[in-house]
């Protein structure tokens, strides 16, 4: 281990997940991957410290789900207790700004609630920190600069240097989370602190409906040989008929989108 490599303070933001089939609360897959990344970092850089942070209401179901993260080998989780339907971003931003960690890791998208995937961006904006999405690995941390590996589509990787503190979000490209063990999960502590509830007014105005399956463009492969089929499967998505609109007004943009949706048969 080189001397300039030193431990980092990592905060992992975790949410209460939702099983895709049964809808039961669980540790969210991407957040758990984020924690796995952090635990790997702890191993790689001795002296690193990993803390867990969750903002949300406390209930039996959510507590069981949060303990799923603790079962991966942590002793405590900081719970910013809020009423149902509160906006988590101000609470998280305030908590992180009060004692800033060097690295904040979060999943790209929550499994319940809005699930818009905007939290990392909103948080980065508020804190004024850089954000890297789709993280695959943290290669090293030297003199306050982290070398990160970002996952791009089709297995490509991009190496980035980011000055800390920074926020990174992980998706399916990050390492798979380790098993959560019952004993450590049961023993670990939830350190709950009440934070002023800031009701999410926008959310309250929304009308929520169950998601429908997104229409998927059928891929017509006209291939005569196995080689062609392989090429078609491995090829990059081609823009082909797409067009880039620049310097158009919002109405023109909307019209273009509407036209495309009608062409594709999404809207009738």
């Amino acid at each position: 281990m080189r001397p300039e490599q030193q431990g980092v303070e990592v905060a992992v933001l975790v949410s209460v997940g939702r099983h895709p089939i049964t809808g039961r609360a669980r540790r969210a897959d991407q957040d758990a991957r984020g924690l796995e990344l952090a635990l790997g970092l702890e191993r790689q850089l001795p002296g690193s410290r990993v803390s867990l942070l969750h903002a949300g209401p406390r209930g039996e179901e959510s507590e069981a789900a949060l303990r799923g993260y603790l079962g991966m080998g942590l002793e405590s989780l900081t719970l910013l207790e809020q009423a149902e339907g509160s906006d988590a971003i101000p609470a998280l931003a305030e908590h992180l700004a009060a004692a800033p960690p060097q690295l904040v890791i979060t999943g790209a998208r929550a499994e319940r609630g809005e699930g818009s995937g905007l939290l990392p961006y909103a948080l980065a904006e508020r804190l004024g920190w850089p954000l890297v999405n789709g993280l695959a690995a943290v290669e090293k941390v030297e003199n306050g600069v982290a070398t990160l590996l970002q996952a791009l589509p089709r297995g490509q990787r991009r190496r980035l240097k980011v000055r800390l503190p920074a926020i990174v979000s992980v998706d399916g490209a990050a390492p798979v989370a380790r098993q959560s063990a019952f004993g450590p999960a049961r023993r670990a502590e939830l350190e709950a602190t009440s934070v002023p509830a800031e009701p999410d007014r926008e959310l309250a105005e929304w009308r929520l409906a169950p998601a429908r399956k997104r229409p998927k463009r059928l891929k017509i492969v006209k291939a005569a040989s196995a080689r062609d089929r392989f090429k078609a499967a491995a090829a990059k998505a081609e823009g082909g008929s797409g067009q880039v609109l620049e310097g158009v007004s919002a109405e023109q943009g909307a019209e273009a989108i509407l036209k495309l949706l009608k062409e594709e048969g999404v809207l009738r």
Partner: protein
Amino acid sequence: MLETLLPILIFAALGLAVIGAWRRVRLWRQGRPSAVPLLKGLAAMPRRYLVDLHHVVGRDKVMSNTHVATAGGFVAAAVLMILVHGLGLAQGVLGWLLLAASATMFVGSLFVARRRRNPPARLSKGPWMRLPKSLMAFSLSVFAITLPAVGLLPADFGHWLLALLLAAVVVWGLGEMVFGMTWGGPMKHAFAGALHLAFHRRAERFGEGNRSTGLKALDLDDEAAPLGVEKPADFTWNQLLGFDACVQCGRCEAVCPAFAAGQPLNPKKLIQDMVVGLAGGSDANYAGSPYPGKPVGEHHGTPHGPIVAREGKALVDAETLWSCTTCRACVEECPMMIEHVDAIVDMRRHLTLERGQTPNKGAEVLDNLIATDNPGGFDPGARLHWAADLNLPLMADVKQAEVLLWLGDGAFDMRNQRTLRALVKVLRAAEVEFAVLGNEERDSGDVARRLGDEATFQSLAKRNIATLAQYRFQRIVTCDPHSFHVLGNEYGELGGQYEVRHHSTFIAELFEAGRLAFAPWKGGNVTYHDPCYLGRYNGEYEAPRNVLKALGIEVKEMERSGFRSRCCGGGGGAPITDIPGERRIPDMRMNDVKETGAELVAVGCPQCTAMLEGVVDATAEVRDIAELVADALVARPAAGATHRPQAEEVI
């Protein structure tokens, strides 16, 4: 000279033995407390030894008689020797009895020596190779020193050199048989074994026809109680005592499917490693077959050190524990009544519950069980899709039925769905009033428990018990022996008492009652594979054979059948943890089938079906008993058919 020397030697040996015994007892007492009735256990010990233990030993007649002669001769000779030579009560019949006892023991030791000439691979060598000589030394020297005592030889017979030589042999014999008994020699098995029988953790398994095979529940409400076994001292004291009783006969090794497949498990070595752990040290002195692929001498442990190291090596490697299929063949064969499977699951519990180290697909399966109540992660609402056209009565609708048909997780498996459909056809043909739980059913928890996840098991079990409590039924019938075992033998501790029948038992009963009629069998040769969880776990060997007989099938038995049946490799989560070996267990089992020349192997378990059907280039077809019965169904003779009037006929 000998007259003065003998009492000194005898009482010195006895004194040292008492000290050794005290030290040994202290080693066992490192374990956790376990409440067993001490006096009642001691009182029951002779019967457990003479009946239960010898029932197992008696499977090998020569060895059984050898042991009776040697051990019986030794016990009698030792007691009489103390009286005759220790206390000088040589008068009368005692001396003659001592001569007879030592002679019997000598004859026995000759047979022991004969077995040790070309010992089978399963026997441990090392100090065990000197045991027949020690037995002879003891019996011969006791015989010789008793000759003058009964007056067959003059008291001053022979030279003093001869007396000295004899004294040396006496010392050898006493050293091995009395001193060695409590100081860790081969004779330790007699001392520890006797106490192990007395204080056995499963007292209920003793007695004719009794068995006790359900795993014991962990107390999850007590947060201070350890979750499984991390270090040897986490076992209960009588488990440690049980390990110490091992006589290293290797019968377990000979029947272990994982050992035969070249996976890194040998039940005998595992028990010996636990002995190493309880005393502290390395396994370098172990003189039997090693774990396949793992040289002896690299592992070491202490009573309070971890059994499985987090990094590097400790007493046992994790893959050894995960190789076990929990088929119980070792427990069935063990003449010392040692509970290998309990110990393995105890150690697995620690690995899963404390460390989160269930290998391979283990973590995924457990996550699925938690999130979807089935190991495959299928939609729990799809549990009855296979029966969409069968119009099965649901318990939620009918509230009560004579029979609750437990489907098991095989309901998600297309192969097992054929079995289930066949079973439903049979039940309908016999006009059984039955209902299913449908989507209310969950996994029984068998796999979770055997993967060490007691928490998930208890969660599933408690919810299943709550569901079952809402309905009235006389018995549960299932085609899955694993569910059968768990519902019948393991839910009781959590508050669910049910009468459970395997479908083969139930079909046999239906046939007996004349509710089924079969067309004669026209197929070829058939053999039957006993599922471990039906046979060894629940003692049901007859009913499946009776059903096959009723079908007109003459079963061509495999060499290993009945209580010696070889596992298919599908139990204990073994297909999930998938520890590599040199061969596959189901391949070996299909070879057993091939040797009988059978074209069809009848099974009674979805796991066995899956494992045996997975064998490439198999010579036999795999069919569940329910399928064979369903295929052979014919309308019952008129007398039976008319006994239930149709509702429409009532005017």
